[in-house]
């Protein structure tokens, strides 16, 4: 009987387990996680930290979900190493586990700032449900905050501060939020959203070190300019370090993530990877890429499982990802790979509406929509069709995008 082992019970690992059970009814399936609770909704934990959502709706699977599907779930289990020759997973105190096919879906851990006192009490990183509980509890008691990390994860801390009534400064290294994807026009809308909830963006700043009181609790952040920002709450979100330490010596090719092809296969036989930690071959982009969105991770888990069960390259990963920010009065949607490509087009429509489209070889590879999300379906369709449209930017920048106005596709 085939034994499938999945390391990680986030959305990709759990999606893989569900798919494997459907595709391989008689197989043995084991899911290992070092967390103490089964799958929960990682997108919604920020809502819990904001104080808006109770705990219960965030849980997705009870332990019974695994029992009903005859899936062995091993909580609080730390994998120490994998022997890919002997096909054995070694754990800290739960013994060894033989596998026929292995899926690595262990995600990442927030990166700590390499500055003095970055581990002080009151300085938070945001990744797990347990993190969110701690952030909520502390935020409810806090008055002043500092946020570090001018990207999609850092802005969640801005929202927490806003919702919890914390007066905060958002220290950014450059001259705007998410400078890799947004121009000044787009970023200014986001800065306005921050200010509206009581968070002040501070540019050309960052953190040189944190100060603490005698009890080791953070009291201030000092930026490289020497400016001091008092805080009793700090949120740091400068990126993820992928959880691959246990794979040392396993022979998997890594390049800031585990390298996989479009079938989620690593370079080692019978070892697959899915979720945030993959650097996958994106068939729409035509190169290796990364993506941390929920939908992408779920689909990667499903695709990995389909191919594991088939013992073949049965289905490839082809996906247009979405990532929304819902913290402000206006909606925000990033899709595909808005920071990549060789060309772009953008336009500001109003004080709360802005659009950017990224192209590679004339095809849409991503974009950002602020305020008006109505073109998202059209843009995603053009991405999936890999249609050359960069020569028709005016049509794509019309407030209302009508694909019928695009010139007919030319033979390539």
């Amino acid at each position: 009987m085939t034994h499938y082992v999945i390391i990680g019970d986030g959305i990709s690992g759990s999606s893989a387990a569900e798919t494997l059970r459907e595709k391989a009814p008689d197989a043995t399936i084991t899911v290992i996680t070092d967390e103490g609770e089964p799958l929960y909704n990682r997108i919604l934990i920020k809502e819990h930290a904001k104080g808006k959502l109770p705990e219960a709706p965030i849980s997705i699977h009870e332990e019974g979900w695994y029992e009903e599907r005859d899936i062995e779930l091993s909580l609080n289990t730390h994998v120490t190493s994998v022997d890919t020759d002997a096909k054995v997973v070694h754990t800290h105190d739960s013994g060894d586990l033989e596998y026929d096919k292995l899926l690595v879906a262990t995600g990442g851990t927030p990166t700590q700032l390499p500055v003095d006192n970055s581990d002080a009490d009151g300085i938070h990183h945001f990744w797990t449900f347990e993190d969110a509980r701690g952030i909520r509890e502390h935020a409810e008691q806090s008055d002043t905050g500092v946020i570090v990390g001018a990207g999609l994860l850092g802005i969640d801390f801005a929202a927490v501060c806003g919702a919890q009534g914390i007066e905060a400064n958002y220290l950014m290294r450059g001259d705007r939020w998410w400078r890799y994807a947004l121009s000044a026009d787009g970023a200014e809308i986001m800065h306005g959203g921050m200010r509206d909830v009581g968070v002040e963006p501070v540019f050309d700043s960052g953190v040189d070190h944190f100060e603490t009181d005698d009890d080791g609790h953070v009291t201030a952040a000092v930026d490289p300019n020497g400016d001091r920002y008092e805080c009793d709450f700090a949120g740091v979100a400068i990126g993820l370090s992928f959880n691959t330490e246990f794979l040392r010596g396993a022979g998997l090719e890594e390049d800031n993530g585990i390298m996989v092809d479009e079938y989620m296969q690593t370079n080692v036989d019978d070892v697959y990877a899915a979720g945030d930690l993959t650097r996958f071959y994106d068939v729409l982009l035509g190169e290796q890429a990364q993506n941390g969105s929920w939908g992408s991770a779920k689909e990667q888990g499903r695709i990995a499982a389909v191919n594991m069960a088939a013992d073949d390259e049965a289905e490839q990963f082809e996906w247009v990802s979405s990532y929304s920010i819902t913290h402000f009065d206006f909606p925000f949607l990033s899709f595909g790979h808005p920071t990549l490509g060789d060309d772009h087009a953008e336009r500001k429509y109003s004080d709360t509406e802005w659009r950017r489209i990224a192209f590679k070889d004339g095809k849409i590879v991503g974009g950002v929509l602020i305020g008006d999300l109505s073109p998202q379906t059209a843009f995603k369709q053009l991405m999936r069709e890999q249609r050359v449209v960069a020569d028709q930017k005016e049509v794509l920048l019309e407030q209302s995008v009508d694909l019928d106005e695009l010139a007919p596709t030319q033979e390539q």
Partner: protein
Amino acid sequence: MHMATSELRGSSLKLTRIESVSPDATVRHVDQLETETLDTFYAAVEGNRPITAAEMGLDAGDVIVGTEYYRVDLM
């Protein structure tokens, strides 16, 4: 986009803006919706066109987290 309207009606369902969520509710973030469902959701929020339950792919009582919280109610 204006989401101040507390109750938006389509042909067979309405989205009701809510301020709190009960512990037994099924809650989804907009990023969990399929592209077409997301489109339909935002159209419903804006009141741009009629919505049918089948289009939404959602069940009555579901809560959707966007820039506001909305509960899906069948009409």
